[in-house]
């Protein structure tokens, strides 16, 4: 299948579904508070454009900061684990606990501790918790995957720990770090929205809260509009990270290579 077809086929399907949706809603006279037609959603989007965009910005900025902090934190902790078996043995179970506890269950506690008046900080912490582990686990795996013979060669030439880390372990881990970042990027967005849901009324101003608010008012078209924006934000994060991955690995990594045979 050629590239044009790969783009055109899903888009054609999307347009067909939207057209069928529009037609069926109008044909059967489905009430807008049950299922709005795509045109109603578009109108709701335009009517609420400024508030939705402000909410998108709130959610997106928290997500991006959480991703950046998760990246920094996970790489630093993975390096620390690599340097000391004792630290790894002591801390690894707690890193796992952080991962397996559902964020929705921790959210109320974090919200109380941080305080509803500093809701952005609470959301940031919750998004960070969700985004942290995939990045951390992948980075640690990558750091430990350095070629043993190359590591021996570094030792033979009297390399310092810093040189070993910088010139061998981190480059080895790069593909894993990027794979982790792609997972964490999506999770950070989910974490932010879930935390907004948990935070409840009157405090959060992100897209998650817009959905709750619109739902309470039975503004289903606006809910759909907010939902569509969230999907677009998620897709944008995913593609940006995929692009970054391709750009960083294209010269050398198997995953970025086009097969010649």
């Amino acid at each position, binding site marked *: 299948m050629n590239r044009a077809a790969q783009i055109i086929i899903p888009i054609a399907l999307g347009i067909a579904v939207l057209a069928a949706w529009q037609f069926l809603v109008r044909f059967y006279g489905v009430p807008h508070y049950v299922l709005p037609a795509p045109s109603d959603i578009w109108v709701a989007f335009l009517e609420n454009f400024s508030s939705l965009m402000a909410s998108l910005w709130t959610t997106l900025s928290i997500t991006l900061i959480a991703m950046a902090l998760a990246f920094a934190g996970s790489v630093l902790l993975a390096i620390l684990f690599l340097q000391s078996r004792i630290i790894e043995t002591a801390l690894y179970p707690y890193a796992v606990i952080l991962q397996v506890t559902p964020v929705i269950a921790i959210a109320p506690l974090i919200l109380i501790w941080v305080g509803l008046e500093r809701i952005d900080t609470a959301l940031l912490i919750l998004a960070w918790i969700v985004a942290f582990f995939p990045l951390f686990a992948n980075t640690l795996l990558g750091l430990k995957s350095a070629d043993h013979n190359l590591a021996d060669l570094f030792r033979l*030439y*009297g390399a310092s720990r810093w040189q070993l880390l910088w010139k061998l372990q981190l480059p080895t881990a790069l593909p894993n770090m990027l794979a982790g970042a792609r997972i964490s990027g999506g999770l950070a967005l989910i974490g932010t929205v879930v935390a907004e849901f948990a935070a409840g009324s009157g405090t959060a101003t992100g897209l998650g809260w817009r959905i709750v608010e619109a739902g309470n008012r039975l503004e289903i078209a606006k809910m759909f509009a907010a939902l569509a924006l969230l999907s677009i934000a998620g897709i944008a994060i995913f593609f940006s990270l995929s692009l970054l991955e391709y750009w960083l690995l294209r010269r050398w990594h198997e995953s970025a290579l086009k097969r010649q045979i």
Partner: protein
Amino acid sequence: MPLLTLSHVSKSFDNGVAALSDVDLRVAAGEFVSLLGPSGCGKSTALRLIAQLLKPSSGEIAFPNGRPPTGFVFQEPTLMPWADALTNARLPLDLEHKNGKEADERAARALARVGLAGFERAYPRELSGGMKMRVSIARAIAGAPKLLLMDEPFAALDELTRQSLNDDLLKLWREDGLTVIFVTHSVFESTYLSSRVVVMTPRPGRVAVDIAIAQPGNRDASYRLTPEFSANAAKVSAALREAMT
């Protein structure tokens, strides 16, 4: 005075495998010594002990004139896939904090000496198996070693590439006055290359025989067809068969 001596060196691993037992070996500067033996005779272990990547369980490894700068070539090219040929070859210099233009020039010269001039910016994935091994050798000589340790470096290559790398290696050995310790399980390769073939017995590895080989100054493809070469290979082969039993 020898460059290095192994006296009563034994090595057992934590899992109880005795890799080497009571090995004595003296290597003089400028020698080309092959360690020949079947798989599992501890040849690679001996090489790693000499490189001080492993510690002997007992016995002593000494460098009477001090530890010489050492290069190591593995069976696999063992290159950094994210770095081009020049950066790979420059590794020993980078790790000694010798950066800048001079290091680049030395690495480029090392690449040129193994026939890879013009491939400085090529990534390992763009190179054939033989070319990758050439980068690996360039990396080893870029650090200007006196001692070159090679662990079955050509075992995974096709016969023609192998013979051409054999000749290139001999040229480097002669020009740089290197001391080479070369692990192999090929009778012909060791006979062709070495001034001495040390035949080892399997499990645990011991030195069975130490065969000095009188080599002509110039070796090339035609030398492989001479009666002298055949006679030497027959001698080494017989010694290896004896060591196996």
